């Protein structure tokens, strides 16, 4: 059983990739950057009190689920979302959709997906992928962060759909049931950009936005004093960079993908202001990569790399990114 009309697409990030692939399949072609941008899913957050594996969470995008939920308004998108208590039922319903010729998005934990190389298998519950067929005991999986479609045994898929913990998937399954094909791009872009700008510049708490970047930079400077253990320092910094580069972000912690969104919107609407912002955002992504480079050198204990240096790179990225949002504030 395979849905022949389904086309796998390689994407930078799982959720925006799945959303774009599914919408395209169901008749609403939309690129991955558009899905990210129109849902205002770009952000920066550092949550010092929420720890995983002993290290605070750093995020470059909004909470899981924000991409397809954030598209409800701009695209008039209605998504059918279903969670389950019972794993058997969740697998039965999945089979039912496949039999009806409907590819569906599901949420799963990376750790239990056998097609991931062991080096990349960590307990991240909010991974997204499309299931588009079944061949005997194997499900045919379109995982957007892989360049080719994958296969996954039923038991493994079942286990990864029902892990517990933060963002527990609870068998989540989703597919679009309706959207407005004639939606107006101009107001949608405007609203989405404004929302992102507001969040990044005017978040009420300094754990989100530009202020969070500066706060984190400050924290990096204070780290040698607070936590003299060099191993802790290396892992702390490494953890920030993992969120930026290891988890599929399209590079530069989603900044390049967002620049691609600004470019696509700017070209479609013929608006020079968005194209300008896109070019600026591209340089911001490059600065984030400089930060990652310095951080990785520190993690590897290379001479010349320091926490203070990483902190400076982060401040440079923050300043450049703030300028982009200040420019877009008048949009």
């Amino acid at each position, binding site marked *: 059983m395979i849905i022949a009309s389904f086309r796998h697409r390689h994407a930078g990030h799982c959720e925006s990739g799945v959303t774009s692939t599914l919408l395209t399949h169901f008749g609403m072609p939309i690129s991955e*950057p558009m899905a990210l941008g129109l849902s205002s899913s770009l952000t920066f957050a550092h949550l010092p009190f929420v*720890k995983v594996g002993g290290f605070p969470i750093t995020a470059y995008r909004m909470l899981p689920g924000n991409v397809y939920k954030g598209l409800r308004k701009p695209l008039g998108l209605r998504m059918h979302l279903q969670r389950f208590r019972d794993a058997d039922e969740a697998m039965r319903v999945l089979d039912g959709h496949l039999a009806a010729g409907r590819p569906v998005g599901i949420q799963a934990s990376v750790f239990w997906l056998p097609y991931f*190389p062991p080096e990349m298998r*960590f307990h991240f519950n909010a991974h997204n992928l499309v299931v588009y067929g079944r061949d005997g005991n194997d499900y045919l999986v379109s995982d957007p962060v892989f360049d080719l479609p994958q296969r996954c045994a039923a038991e493994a898929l079942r286990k990864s759909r029902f892990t517990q913990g*933060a963002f527990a998937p609870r068998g989540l399954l989703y597919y679009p049931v309706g959207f407005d094909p004639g939606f107006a791009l101009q107001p949608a872009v405007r609203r989405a950009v404004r929302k992102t700008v507001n969040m990044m510049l005017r978040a009420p708490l300094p754990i989100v936005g530009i202020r969070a970047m500066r706060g984190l930079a400050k924290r990096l400077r204070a780290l040698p004093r607070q936590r003299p253990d060099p191993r802790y320092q290396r892992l702390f910094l490494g*953890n920030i960079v993992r969120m930026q580069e290891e988890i599929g972000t*399209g590079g530069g912690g989603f900044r390049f993908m967002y620049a691609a969104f600004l470019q696509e919107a700017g070209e479609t609407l013929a608006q020079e202001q968005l194209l300008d912002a896109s070019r600026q955002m591209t340089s911001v992504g490059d600065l984030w990569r400089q930060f990652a480079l310095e*951080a990785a050198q520190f993690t590897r204990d290379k001479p010349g790399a320091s926490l203070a240096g990483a902190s400076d790179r982060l401040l440079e990225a923050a300043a450049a990114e703030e300028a982009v949002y200040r420019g877009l504030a008048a949009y």
Partner: protein
Amino acid sequence: MKQEEVPQDHLPYYQSGRKAIYAVDGEGHFGTVPSSGWSVEDAVTAAAAGEYARQAQDALARARRGETSPLEYHLSDRRLDVAQLAQSARLSACRVRRHFRPQVFARLSSSRLSRYADALGLSPEALRGLPPPEGP
């Protein structure tokens, strides 16, 4: 980032797989470029995985000396922390920590043991045991 700047560091664990990275072509146009990985990503991922491995080895040595239960070893071996395991097994974190004591762990009921086994993706027998010592 320009397309020719997209890192191609041939990370061994990518094998034939590629990651999609957004970059601009000669005309400044965005598109995705398949990347065979960036050494930066390799460094930070290896550091994180290495930390779990280090904790697992440490727990293993202590478990062999009878200072902790096999549960602590399997926890790190599965790249989990106490809070995550507690949530998965639907127990409080203090309780999980208490089960690190070998005497307490040995008295665990089979139903509780299977809850842990399930959360860790192990059989209850494997959970009670430790990997055989390496070497000749």
